[in-house]
């Protein structure tokens, strides 16, 4: 806060998501250490980081499933509270309700968020939308099945449809493809990108897979606890910060992209910056060149080391 940035990125106006000075710790362990972030509507924002860096914690804060210790988190200018339909979520597992059919799983949102009269009046349009979402997800013939009858990849498609029918302001995804086989995983990545290109919804996608983040995202954030700053804490006692923030140029949603040299170089850089415990970047050397990137450091942190 003591280094007010002249950067327009530090202004919550016009940003869908805005985080300022967000801290989160569990007992003595600091997980998130002064996170500043802003995300524009329509962005596909990938968050990568080594295991234990707190990327899922950050997602849970955005979701409202947990509260930050300090700082503010704004969605569309308003502070976030408990989970609500403004935010959609796709977990790696347990996103679906096992006791409901696929169609009922997708329809659950409209059903829960409308009262009896609204549901009766709009039933037909909800049904149409659910049917068209199932079609988009290539699940049109599976509406009557139960989740346990579908493969893991199909279940995740249902979970995406279930979230999309609510038209959330932001779709949060927590390693949604992490438990899938590589081929299914790639298939779903391409599919998700196609849907994003049609709908341009804002996505916040957490993954530990750098390639996945680079392939999907228009912007990749690197969260890591491996860095140095001016504080006299031992290096493994401070929490994670955003240590890299990249704008990704996207030409085509083709998996060929994954095989270009540029892609490989960037993946290598990110791995070095964020994932190598022995490489400790100075806090003033972080690559935060994305136009929406900003941060406010306190003097101690900013002193470098």
């Amino acid at each position, binding site marked *: 806060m003591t280094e007010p940035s002249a950067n327009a990125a530090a202004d919550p106006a016009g940003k869908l998501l805005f985080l300022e000075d967000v801290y989160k710790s569990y007992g003595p362990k600091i997980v998130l250490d002064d996170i500043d972030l802003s995300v524009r509507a329509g962005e596909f924002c990938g968050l990568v980081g080594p295991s234990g860096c707190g990327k899922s914690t950050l997602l849970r804060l955005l*979701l409202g*499933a947990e509260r930050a210790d300090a700082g503010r988190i704004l969605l569309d200018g308003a502070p976030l509270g408990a989970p609500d*339909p403004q935010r959609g979520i796709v977990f790696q*597992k347990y996103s679906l309700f096992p006791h409901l059919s696929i169609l009922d799983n997708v329809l*659950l949102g409209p059903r829960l968020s409308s009262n009896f009269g609204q549901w009766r009046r709009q039933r037909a349009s909800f049904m149409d939308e659910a049917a068209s979402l199932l079609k988009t997800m290539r699940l049109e013939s599976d509406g009557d099945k139960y989740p346990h009858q579908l493969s893991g990849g199909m279940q995740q498609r249902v979970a995406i449809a279930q979230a999309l029918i609510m038209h959330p302001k932001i779709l949060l995804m927590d390693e949604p493809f992490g438990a899938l086989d590589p081929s299914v995983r790639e298939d779903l990545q391409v599919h998700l990108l196609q849907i994003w290109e049609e709908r341009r919804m804002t996505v916040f996608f957490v993954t530990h897979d750098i390639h996945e983040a680079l392939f999907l995202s228009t912007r990749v954030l690197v969260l890591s606890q491996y860095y140095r700053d001016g504080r006299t804490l031992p290096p493994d006692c401070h929490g994670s910060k955003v240590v890299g923030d990249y704008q990704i140029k996207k030409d085509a949603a083709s998996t060929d992209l994954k095989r270009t040299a540029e892609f490989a170089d960037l993946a290598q850089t990110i791995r070095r910056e964020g994932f190598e415990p022995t490489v400790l970047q100075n806090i003033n050397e972080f690559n935060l060149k994305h136009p929406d990137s900003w941060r406010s450091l306190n003097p101690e942190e900013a002193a470098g080391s």
Partner: protein
Amino acid sequence: MRRTLGPLPFLLALVVYLVASNARLRENPLDKLLPSPVRMAAAARSLAFEPDRRSGSRLLWLDTGASLERLGIGMSCAALAGLLLGLNLGLFPGLSALLQPFVTAVSIIPPLAVLPILFIVFGVDELSKVVLIFVGTFPVITREIMLAARNIPREQIVKALTLGATQLEVVYRIVLPQLLPRLLETVRLTLGSAWLFLIASEAIAAENGLGYRIFLMRRYLAMDVILPYALWITVLGFAFDLALKYFIAWRYPWYGVEEE
């Protein structure tokens, strides 16, 4: 091949009985201990179809009706109470910290040991029998439902909230429906002990009921009534077990299937 093995022990038991019964009856045609199937069938027929000389009712159905009524009321109350309490214990950690030790302690008390207390407090009529069944099965059901409620992934609840559910809707649209098959399953498993409590309480003080009849007939060594009654109770128990099992499988096809 394997399926044909199952009936073999039944056949064997039947043969052993017939041989033994035959041997005893040859020595003493009036032997009461191992009556012949013909005598048992005759006794069963008269109990099922001929009005009793004293009461004028058909005893088998009178007893079955009375017993099933006690069993039904006791189990339904236990299921309902177990569901409500288990659900709340599972969802609210504070409540479970308060009540769980108590419920655990109650579940350890052998219900038959408190039967005299029930007779004293609730009288020797219907209520004490129903309460015994309730006391015997309710803690188990509560515990099972509590564990099932706790096992519902937290993700599901967060997800439901992002779909616009209120707290109340989370409970009765997300959690409760997932507990129902588990409830029926637990009822199915506790039915065995419920029968035990029923027959024990009927044996001690009743005017009718399957347990009452068996213990009454014991005085006359009327094995030709006791054995068909025991068989009938077994058939009833088996039928309920099977009916519940198929009902659960039909009504809750998703239940009991491992994820992925």
